[in-house]
């Protein structure tokens, strides 16, 4: 069992937990992810590692409630435990593997959308620890769904926060901010790292293609084992099929087939929806949807 030491709600449907997971904490790097399974019946859910403490053997995870399993997970409290936590999975970010001197020469701009702030944070923190400057754009729908602002502020050279509805800081999405920085504020970036909802990453990539800035994205497709066995997480990258779990999760965003990636996320949508209803409706769930046959 993997004990939950802290659990809090950061924003609507967004939760943070600190979990004992010594094997993950001892070796994880920015860019990698882990898989949790809450109990016997639970799904294996891939999550990004938001932070880690090697000495305490703990990792911080942040997740959003999107389906039945994350809905159940959100109810866990400090003192509860996950039945399974495995990782780290995937590959570290490219800059970890590059010679430090090379990384220092480049100007990085990290773009986080919504819960994407969680996986962006350890990357920006790594830059901070190496003494390398980098900018961060943090975008979200509205002020109430903003997370990680303070943490990112502490490690980013410049942090630009924006909300789609203008309820807090800059009005507009991350693309508006990036375009303004590059076109009007005289900023020059050699690399953009964008992590967030698929649709955000797609539009960032369209923009950076025009701006001619190489862009890395982190894919979070449907996965089962996460170790290179099932092939559920296949992503079209250029003319190749890649498995996000062992080849990624980070890829060249300009080569991703976004339309395909987004459609593949829908594979289990109706099944997910029914499972979600079943959890929410509990004992009163009798198959009123006419599809699932209730408890049968």
């Amino acid at each position, binding site marked *: 069992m993997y004990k939950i030491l802290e659990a809090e709600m950061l924003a609507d449907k967004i939760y943070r937990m600190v979990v004992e997971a010594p*094997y*993950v904490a*001892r*070796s994880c790097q920015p860019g*990698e992810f882990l898989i949790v*399974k809450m109990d*016997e*019946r*639970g*799904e*294996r859910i891939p999550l990004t590692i938001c932070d880690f403490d090697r000495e305490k053997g703990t990792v911080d995870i942040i997740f959003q409630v999107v389906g*039945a*399993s994350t809905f*159940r997970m959100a109810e866990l409290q400090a003192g509860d435990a996950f*039945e*399974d*936590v*495995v*990782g*780290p*999975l995937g590959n570290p970010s490219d800059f970890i593997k590059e010679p430090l001197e090379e990384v220092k020469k480049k100007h990085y701009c990290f773009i986080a959308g919504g819960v994407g702030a969680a996986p962006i944070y350890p990357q920006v923190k790594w830059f901070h620890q190496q003494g390398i400057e980098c900018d961060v754009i943090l975008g979200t729908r509205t002020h109430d769904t903003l997370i990680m602002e303070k943490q990112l502020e502490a490690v980013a050279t410049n942090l630009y926060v924006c909300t789609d509805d203008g309820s807090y800081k800059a009005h507009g999405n991350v693309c508006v901010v990036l375009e303004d920085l590059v076109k009007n504020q005289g900023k020059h970036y050699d690399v953009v790292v964008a992590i967030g909802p698929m649709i955000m990453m797609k539009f960032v990539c369209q923009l950076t293609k025009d701006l001619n800035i190489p862009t890395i994205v982190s894919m979070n497709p449907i996965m*089962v*084992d996460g*170790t*290179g*066995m*099932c*092939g*559920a997480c*296949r992503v*079209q990258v250029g003319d190749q*099929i890649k*498995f996000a779990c*062992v080849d990624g999760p980070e890829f060249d965003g300009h080569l991703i087939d976004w339309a*395909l990636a987004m*459609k*593949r996320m*829908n*594979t*289990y949508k109706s*099944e*997910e929806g029914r*499972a979600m209803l079943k959890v929410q409706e509990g004992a009163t769930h009798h198959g009123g949807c006419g599809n699932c046959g209730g408890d049968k």
Partner: protein
Amino acid sequence: MAMDVLHKVPVREQDPKVRATNFEEVCYGYNEEEAKIEAERCIDCKKPLCVQGCPVNIDIPGFIRQVKQGNYEEAAKVIGLSSALPAICGRVCPQETQCEGRCIRGIKGEPISIGKLERFVADWSHEHNIVAAEKGEPNGKKVAVVGAGPAGLTCAGDLAKLGYDVTIFEALHQPGGVLLYGIPEFRLPKEKIVAKEIEVVKNLGVKIECNVIIGKSITIDELLNEEGFDAVFVGSGAGLPKFMGIPGENANGVFSANEFLTRNNLMKAFKDYDTPIMRAKKVVVVGGGNVAMDAARTALRLGAEVHVVYRRSEAELPARVEEVHHAKEEGVIFDLLQNPTEILMDENDNVRGMKIVKMELGEPDASGRRKPVEIPGSEYEIDCDAVIMSLGTSPNPLISSTTKGLEINSHKCIIAEEETGKTSKEGVYAGGDAVTGAATVILAMEAGKAGAKGIHEYLSNH
């Protein structure tokens, strides 16, 4: 029941119509009476060919002799000398090409039903809590085993019997490997059989740590240099599923057999657990191996009409005869000498059908099998809403890419000596699918035994 020397005692099975709708075990196995009668058919050859046909060389006439006399505990101990997983092997070994394929009785009639007898003995000994093997006197040496599948469990069991302190590291959340995620419940019950056999290995003192992914959570070099292990056996299994590379393969509703089976078997999607699985109306399974049969029969049980599309003819089907026979009985439709050329999608990228071309057999190819050749103009379309690709796997790079000095071949399989499992890296041994590419449970067990022998020799002189 009277004995018919030419024929096997028939084994009782669930009615095909009934079992096509449930996940209960298909075959009931022999009871005591049936086992004794079947055992009597064995003529106890002086030079038993069956033993040569067994990858782990079980003393087959030896255990059958005990069954004849009703000494099932002794029979279990005879098997236990050679095999750590007899209840599993009795169910999933391709006996027709191994022990039973060599049986003298098979020349004039049917061979002895060795697999069913092995299964009977193993099940009997589980029911009676027989301890078939004891752990050895501790020798103070530590061995790490990567992967709790058939190769790793066998290697760990053999080393524990020799007195080693063995820890198995398993990447998934439960031990068993392919026995758990790959082979379905109706062929190999998980609680009743797999969990019990693993318990036997644990009772030999073997520790199993799940959720540890070697190469990521900790590397082989760290195990050897920092964690105090004297040797490592790598039995990490097969890897990434292969796809055909035809148009439409990324449509929603195209799965690898590994994904489909893992959702169903390991994640228990069939049991109303949280992990979803697609319950399609009409499924095409591409491939003709045991995994294809498992996927087809699973899709059938989840309510689909199932077609197996295979490019060669029935004689070339790589699956065990019994699996093909069972699949047919249950209603799986075999579209043989046919090959998909394209997967068709609807406007939302969901699978709506498949283009298939008919084939004929030409000259034998490198594998000795006659090469299938397309018949021009024979293409047709079939409606379906899911496709399961069962085309084999290619090795997982996680271990080879993170272990210095561990050599791999052009297929990216770990290079290891067959007799000992010895790799290019000192103290590291390997076996099973990680070395051979996708094969069978029993061949992985054979490699696990070889690895244990190799490690024992290495550490005895070290």
